[in-house]
């Protein structure tokens, strides 16, 4: 029943195909990367007709497995020029799974100026003219689409940033309340979608069904064990649903690893004012909901709802990375301002990490003062209105830095670093440098006790052991992304041995396989090898796997450390 939906934007045709042998056994990131590596010329311009946009739910989509509805979006990145996968919550992953669609491959380009929506239902798909959506942000786009398609469907849209093909543009997915708050943010995939003239994807799951299972009883048993691990673990059952991912602000600040003022310090005086404890407090006080799932089937529920002082909806809870990028990194200590900015980024369709880093670099370049909320909001607004300054900012951290003559530009392969300073968390630094995606924390953010062969304690301030740590984390993450699981399942997978066994048992029960936990690491390595090979053919040799030089020269207070993992060691990271 599983099919690929191939969409030709030049001929405006959408046809279902059987899944080729080469793509069997892959889902999510594994599948998007396999398709891109096989079908896209690695040397092409990312916005040319030759590039392809691929969307794929994970291997465990449309099942009763908890937290299995992530959707991967892939292509050659308009921001980095490397292969790219960014994944998101929201409803579309589960809906596509229920329709038996394992991937959507969007190729070619329509005549200039044409804009379409792809409308998908049970065994049918068509491209429909969408000129009425031209120039709209994600919130207005969804409101307009609802007039035609109603509220029993899932929406994927791009905002103005995607239409204008800005390299920081994201792809938005609606949550359970049809808010376009979940984003495949990193790497400018919204610009790729915009280059295809594709403004929206509408997925109606009616008539669809749960994925067929080879052994329903075994699946049920394993799904139950997996859910128990998630509800037993204190981080997934207590920390995340109470404080959201923003809980990390105070911890990382305490560790002296919270990048502040464009990566010039490791601690921010205003951290407490923007941390998860404060976020929870003001949310409860204003009658908001701290415990909200970003997709159906989620039992962690870390995506709270942020209300303004007047009690009106502003945005979903800004994630830790968003709070950090626009908060400490820009020296802004105002959660209300950060939530408004989060809403603007969601509406224009922008990666909040890339934009926060771009703003901090713009501040260093003198366009706005550090800590100036109004100035930051005004400049961000220009991305939505499309002024030249706005378009440069929306092209990302490296672009604005080069235009302003700033030398401290925190990017790897053109993508901005996230919220852990690589000098104080060196394992993360290795991941930023060597990830196939450009600087990306999620690329090496998760692990399982059975996969991670690193024993004992790795000092975050010392170079020893970091490469091995990052290698195992990156392989484990690629496997989690391929299964379509939320990355936060990594907490129980790390601490409760049966959680990883339960995941493998579910894969076996769904597909009639006999995988062991060792195969999980092997699956991750297979995906990374596919991605590395694409990048090599695109012209990224080992010399590209480096952090910007200032991380080796400028010591980071309070620990006064530099990044000192050697180049030779970095080059061994993803050698399997």
């Amino acid at each position, binding site marked *: 029943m599983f099919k690929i939906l191939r969409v030709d934007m030049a001929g405006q045709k959408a046809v279902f195909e059987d899944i080729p042998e080469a793509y069997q056994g892959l889902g999510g990131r594994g599948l998007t990367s396999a398709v891109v590596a096989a079908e896209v010329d690695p040397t092409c311009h990312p916005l040319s007709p030759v590039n392809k946009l691929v969307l794929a739910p994970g291997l465990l989509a449309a099942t009763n497995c908890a937290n299995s509805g992530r959707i991967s979006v892939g292509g050659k990145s308009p921001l980095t020029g490397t292969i790219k996968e960014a994944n998101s919550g929201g409803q579309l992953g589960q809906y596509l799974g229920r329709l038996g669609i394992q991937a959507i491959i969007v190729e070619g380009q329509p005549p200039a100026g044409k804009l379409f929506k792809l409308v998908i239902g049970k065994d049918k798909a068509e491209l429909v003219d969408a000129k009425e959506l031209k120039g709209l942000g994600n919130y207005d786009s969804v409101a307009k689409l609802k007039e035609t398609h109603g509220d029993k469907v899932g929406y994927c849209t791009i905002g103005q940033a995607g239409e204008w093909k800005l390299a920081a543009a994201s792809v938005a997915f609606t949550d359970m309340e049809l808010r376009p708050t979940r984003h495949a943010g990193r790497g400018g995939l919204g610009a790729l979608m915009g280059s295809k003239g594709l403004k929206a994807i509408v997925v109606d799951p009616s008539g669809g069904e749960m994925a067929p299972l080879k052994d329903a009883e075994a699946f049920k048993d394993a799904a139950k064990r997996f859910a128990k691990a998630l509800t*037993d*673990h*204190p*981080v997934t059952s*207590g*920390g995340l649903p*109470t*404080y959201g991912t923003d*809980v*990390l602000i*105070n*911890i*990382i600040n*305490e*560790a*002296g*690893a919270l990048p502040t003022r464009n990566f010039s310090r490791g*601690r921010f005086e205003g951290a*407490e004012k923007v941390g*998860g*404890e*404060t976020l929870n407090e003001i949310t409860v006080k204003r009658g908001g909901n701290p415990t909200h799932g970003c997709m159906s089937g989620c039992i962690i529920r870390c995506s709270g709802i942020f209300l303004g002082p007047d009690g009106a909806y502003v945005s979903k809870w800004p994630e830790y990375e968003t709070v950090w990028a626009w908060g400490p990194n820009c020296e802004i200590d105002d959660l209300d301002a950060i939530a408004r900015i989060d809403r603007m980024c969601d509406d224009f369709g922008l990666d909040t990490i890339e934009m926060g880093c771009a703003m901090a670099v713009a501040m260093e370049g003198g366009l706005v003062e550090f800590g100036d909320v109004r100035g930051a909001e005004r400049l961000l607004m220009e991305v939505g209105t499309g002024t030249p300054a706005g378009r440069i900012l929306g092209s990302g951290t490296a672009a604005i830095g080069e235009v302003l003559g700033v030398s401290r530009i925190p990017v790897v392969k053109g993508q901005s670093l996230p919220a*852990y300073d690589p000098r104080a*968390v*060196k*394992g*993360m630094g290795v*991941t930023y440098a060597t990830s196939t995606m450009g600087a990306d924390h999620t690329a*090496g*953010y*998760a*692990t399982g*006790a059975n996969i*991670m062969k690193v024993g004992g*304690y*790795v*000092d*975050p*301030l010392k170079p020893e052991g*970091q490469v091995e*740590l*990052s290698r195992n*984390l990156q392989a484990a993450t690629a496997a989690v992304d391929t299964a379509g699981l939320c990355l936060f399942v*990594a*907490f129980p997978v*790390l*601490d*409760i041995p049966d959680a990883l066994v339960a995941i493998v048992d579910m894969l076996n029960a769904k597909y009639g396989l006999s995988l062991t936990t060792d195969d999980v690491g092997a699956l991750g390595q297979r995906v990374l090898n596919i991605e590395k090979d694409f990048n090599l053919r695109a012209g990224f040799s080992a010399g590209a796997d480096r952090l910007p030089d200032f991380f080796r020269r400028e010591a980071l207070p*309070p*620990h006064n450390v530099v990044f000192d993992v050697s180049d030779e060691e970095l080059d061994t990271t993803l050698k399997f």
Partner: protein
Amino acid sequence: MMEITIKLGGPLRKKVQGHERGEMTLSLPEGALISEALTRLELEPDEVRVVMKNGLAIHADEPLAPGDRLGLFPRELAYNTMTAISFFNPLARKKQTQD
């Protein structure tokens, strides 16, 4: 006597009295150990899964010096491996990886 600073995270703020937004100072005898600071706060070692002294991991029950800062976080906030940082509390009695 000496004074040290305490920073509490998440649910520990409900268990400990006398702090302002998770921060407080504590008077202890010169050379007091980390475990003595926890006792003064009426916290069991198992309730504190992450300990940082001046932003660094501890490896044993170390003596404190005037002006030291202790960051204390409970099991709900034990994000250790996710962030490639390990700040597990060596004073906790239960096995760290089996909550």
